[in-house]
């Protein structure tokens, strides 16, 4: 029932804020995993079961757009929804991401509600059957927003 979430951002504080925001959203979280760039994210994806990826675009070594491309090219990984949380929200960049199969787009600066809304929307689309299951006692369902 709970979802494993990979948070990819080169800012350690932004990763912490996103994790906190997701935790408070009421989405049942199994484990959080973190990566500081696309390369690290791919290493996590090779080793760990991940249900959804939240990623920045502007990162050193491998940015979010290249990560999305790699994920979409991989037969197993392409099933994992990827949501961009980024300052790079020009129409052209969003269109490029859509073509590559991005599941959602949140523009920084963001309100916590924006992440909650897109996360539920994406999870419902990808894992409707799992969201309908009753939550564990440990996974609080109440939202703190």
């Amino acid at each position, binding site marked *: 029932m709970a979802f494993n979430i990979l948070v990819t951002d080169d800012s350690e504080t932004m990763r912490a804020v996103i994790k906190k925001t997701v935790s408070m959203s009421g989405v049942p979280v199994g484990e959080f995993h973190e990566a500081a760039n696309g390369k690290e994210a791919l290493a996590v994806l090779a080793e760990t079961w991940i249900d959804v990826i939240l990623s920045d675009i502007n990162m050193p070594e491998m940015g979010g757009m290249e990560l999305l491309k790699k994920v979409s090219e991989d037969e197993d990984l392409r099933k994992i929804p990827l949501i961009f949380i980024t300052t790079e929200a020009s129409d052209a960049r969003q269109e490029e991401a859509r073509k590559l199969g991005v599941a959602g787009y949140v523009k920084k*600066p963001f309100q916590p509600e924006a992440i909650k809304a897109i996360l539920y929307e994406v999870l419902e689309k990808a894992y409707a059957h799992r969201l309908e299951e009753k939550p564990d006692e440990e996974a609080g369902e109440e939202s703190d927003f």
Partner: protein
Amino acid sequence: MDEDLRRVIFATFSEVFETMFFTFLEPLEEAPGKEELACGKFIEATIGYSGGCNGRFIFCFPWELGKNITVNFLGVDEDEASDSQIIDTAAETANMAIGSLLGKLDPGGTASLAIPQARLLAEFSPETLLGVSGLCMFNTEFGILWVVGTHA
């Protein structure tokens, strides 16, 4: 820097600071008093963009402002914010502010944002910035945010 660009910068930075850090900015038109110009601990965050348009912005945060926005950002107590988190938050602030600004100045997405860099300036006097072309000053509860930028 023309007035239209200054207005866009103020609106954009205000949105970032209010939404992410619950901090309000007030633009300063005139040079501040001596107290605000004294040497002290600052954080310098730099970010640029290039492509269809080019620009570079330098943010100078008084340490207390950097600490305050980090505390608000992370939702932690004052003594829980580490120096590295404060410096990282300054870099992320530059990223969010200039990324948002670029979205307005270059809606076609022809320019690419660089990776922000931030460092501690142990003894810095913002007086050295007075008179520099492209200087914007914003008053906050925790000191003046100094920003020097170019856009072409």
